[in-house]
């Protein structure tokens, strides 16, 4: 039974993805294109060359971070919709530190900037966390509001006070070279993987893998993780067990925000090397979808982020080589999410029905609900 449940945990996203491709295919057919050709282009765009695969990974890295952020908070029963704002703050603080401490050697500056990225996101997430813990204000509202504040505030500073001298583009100057994360093209080509020098894949992918491991380790190996999961599943029981629900909520939000803030390691330290106003274009929100598809587990987030990396990368190819609008990929992603959610719900209901029936007690809720109709 439990094994069956676990198996379907794994299977239902896969089925949903397959079904989504089917629906996408129908859409393509409806607009008069050959779905096999389009999907062929999509996958060639994602896997056709080492360069393409490099882009898939590069595109997946920020989604790993934002996906982890959403998934981690979710395990504490919190909906962190604020990944977008948190990653802006992470990138902003990271850039400030990179500009301010440019004199430090890489061995100090790189760790410092990684910490600054995480701290920026953590700080931004702490606010809704504290408001929830202290006043019981729902975090969904506050994280969304914090998004607006983050985008507006960083934009203001970048445009009005930190703009690169002599530039019209709303961006800061470049951070010190010693704060850059190296690209992987060089080392990879030395061991025979022909990744072009132009490919932006950088060391942040290692940080992303580390973050996946860290999220798993915290959740399943530490006391804090045990408490986070207890609060997430049953806050009343957690309270009964002597767990401070408030403190746990704040801790979970802070860690969640830290994961989101780490997006800066890819976007700032590894790629742009500066803060560009409005750079994210929804990475934080995409993290919600990634976490959903990944069933809020660290490993699931990793796999889901890779899938989204494939879709995003292949979408460019479709855009360039066909008349099919790249929005098709958005449709495909959205359909996948809907099917996963529906699949979850269907499975949850079946499991619940099975639970009820396996222990037919006098107070079976089915009787109540049906009577109430």
């Amino acid at each position, binding site marked *: 039974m439990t094994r069956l449940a676990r198996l379907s945990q794994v299977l239902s996203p896969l089925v949903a993805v397959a079904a989504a491709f089917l629906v996408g295919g129908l859409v393509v057919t409806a607009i008069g294109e050959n779905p096999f050709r389009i999907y062929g282009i999509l996958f060639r765009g994602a896997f056709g060359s080492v360069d393409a695969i490099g882009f898939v990974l590069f595109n997946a890295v920020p989604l790993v971070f934002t996906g982890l952020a959403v998934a981690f908070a979710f395990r504490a029963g919190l909906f962190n919709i604020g990944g977008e704002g948190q990653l802006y703050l992470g990138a902003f603080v990271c850039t400030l530190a990179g500009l301010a401490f440019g004199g430090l050697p890489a061995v100090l500056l790189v760790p410092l900037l990684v910490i600054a990225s995480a701290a920026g996101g953590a700080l931004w997430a702490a606010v809704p966390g504290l408001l929830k813990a202290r006043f019981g204000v729902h975090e969904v509202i506050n994280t969304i509001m914090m998004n607006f504040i983050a985008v507006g505030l960083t934009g203001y500073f970048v445009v009005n006070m930190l703009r690169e001298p002599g530039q019209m583009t709303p961006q800061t100057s470049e951070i010190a070279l010693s704060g850059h994360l190296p690209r992987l093209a060089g080392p990879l080509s030395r061991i025979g993987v022909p990744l072009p020098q132009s490919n932006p894949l950088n060391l942040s992918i290692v940080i992303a893998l580390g973050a996946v491991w860290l999220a798993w380790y915290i959740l399943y190996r530490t006391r804090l993780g045990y408490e986070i999961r207890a609060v997430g599943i049953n806050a009343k029981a957690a309270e009964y067990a002597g767990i401070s629900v408030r403190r746990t909520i704040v801790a979970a939000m802070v860690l969640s925000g830290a994961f989101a803030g780490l997006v800066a390691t890819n976007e700032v330290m590894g790629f742009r090397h500066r803060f560009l106003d409005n750079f994210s274009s929804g990475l934080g929100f995409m993290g919600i979808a990634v976490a959903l598809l990944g069933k809020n587990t660290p490993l699931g987030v990793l796999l889901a982020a890779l899938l989204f990396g494939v879709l995003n990368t292949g979408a460019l190819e479709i855009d360039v080589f066909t008349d099919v609008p790249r929005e098709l990929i958005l449709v495909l992603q959205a359909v996948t999410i809907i099917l996963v959610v529906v699949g979850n719900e269907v499975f949850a209901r079946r499991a619940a029905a099975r639970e009820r029936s396996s222990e037919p007690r006098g*107070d079976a809720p089915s009787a*109540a609900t049906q009577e109430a109709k």
Partner: protein
Amino acid sequence: MPEGHAVQMRGISKRYPRVLANDNVDLDVADGEIHAIVGENGAGKSTIMKVLYGLTPPDAGSIALWGRELRGHRPSDAIDAGVGMVHQHFMLVDTLTVAENVVLGDEPRRAGVFTDVAAARERVRSLSSEYGLALDPDELIENLSVGLEQRVEIVKVLYRGAKVLILDEPTGVLTPQEVRELFEILRSLRDAGRTIIFITHKLEEVLELADRITVMRDGRVAGVVPAQGTTKEELAHMMVGRDVLLRVEKEDASPGEPVLEIRGLSAAGRKGANVLEDIELTVRAGEVLGIAGVQGNGQTELVEIVTGLRRAGAGTVRVCGIETSNRSPRQVRDLGVAHVPEDRQARGLVLGFTIAENLVLGKHHRPPFSNHGLMALDEVRSHAERLIGEHDLRPADPDVDAEHLSGGNQQKLIVAREFDGGPALLVASQPTRGVDIGAIEFVHQSLLRMRDAGAAILLISAELSEIMTLSDRIAVMYDGRVVAEYEGGAVGEDELGVAMTGGAAPVPAGVARDGGGAEEGAL
């Protein structure tokens, strides 16, 4: 007893994915009798009633009502055929009147669109007086006691023309007096020609009320017996399939030092009024203090304050001499206070956690289960394996999620966890609610073993018989106060029952039921 069968169910089988809930069950209920169905949790008694009432289609079998085959397996089919069900959890709208609730969904109409309020009131009044229900049609539900709410449910069913009434565990939430009155009502319904089917696990009640008894075990009918000439022991044997110790043997207590001392404790409820008023209680090492009382008279709040889950208003609570009234639940636990909570699924378990994880809940922050912020998974696991063995938890697999356990095993899990480690004070709230007879026996014996090992035990139970068999001393709570205290064995059920209703007249209309969710009756 009149001739003929009101209900004939033949060869009913119902398979759920993991269990055969009904296996070729035959049920005959004579017209105009009170027929009890008894059995342990999971014996299939609720399933067979759901099949009859049309909530669950059977896989096989047939149903006939007064000789006519029932076609269609939906509640509306059953209702049309004259079957009514009084659910264990009442489905009433608090802010509407009795009459409005009764007619809800089937209102008498005036000019086709308007509810004929006068007609509704008249119907309720006449049904009420016909069977001695003493209901005021214009009273708001929120002002009624549980016993009266139940009568509203009965009138609802009668209003819809039920000739067969199914009552699912109807006595769980009632005081002894209310139970007696309910029985009077059911007898008068029977005498007026209605047929009553009565699901319960309380054997005394069955023998007192029923004409005939169908005993179920493991989805089958274990026997059908007349109530007259049958004993509790025989019924228990049929239910469980072995002899059961119905009486707990216990030695006299040898109380030691006071462990729990409550002085002048008051606390305000949600609406501002005091839910606890000047409580004075002492529990000594090696004794069981039982708290009797109708649910919702402050017991829940008392337990929550003692365990640190709620703030005290005024007064002191000491555990082993240490003031605890404003300490956190963790600090209270760390003083050696264990707590079997009244609602195991809401408080006592994290259902999505494994058995092993649940078995350290509340102790997970201490060595050996965690060190320096890291969980010691090997310790957690070996702890689980030990307790699973000692308490015969099933399934005996530490990695199974608690939500897959039966209700009885969930309770055993909590008992195993809370009793382990030699607590100084054990607060046991409804420790056997919804638990099989076999498990009840086990929990009772464990409680007494704890007592004999020197633990102070505060026992709160809605089951008077449980209070009376286990307690060395009994305190009665009513309306947030301790209204009486007795030596165990020196008081009878009737006297307790009177004290539980504030020493007032037997019908406690408007017994205070406000207060922290105590009204949940998850039997």
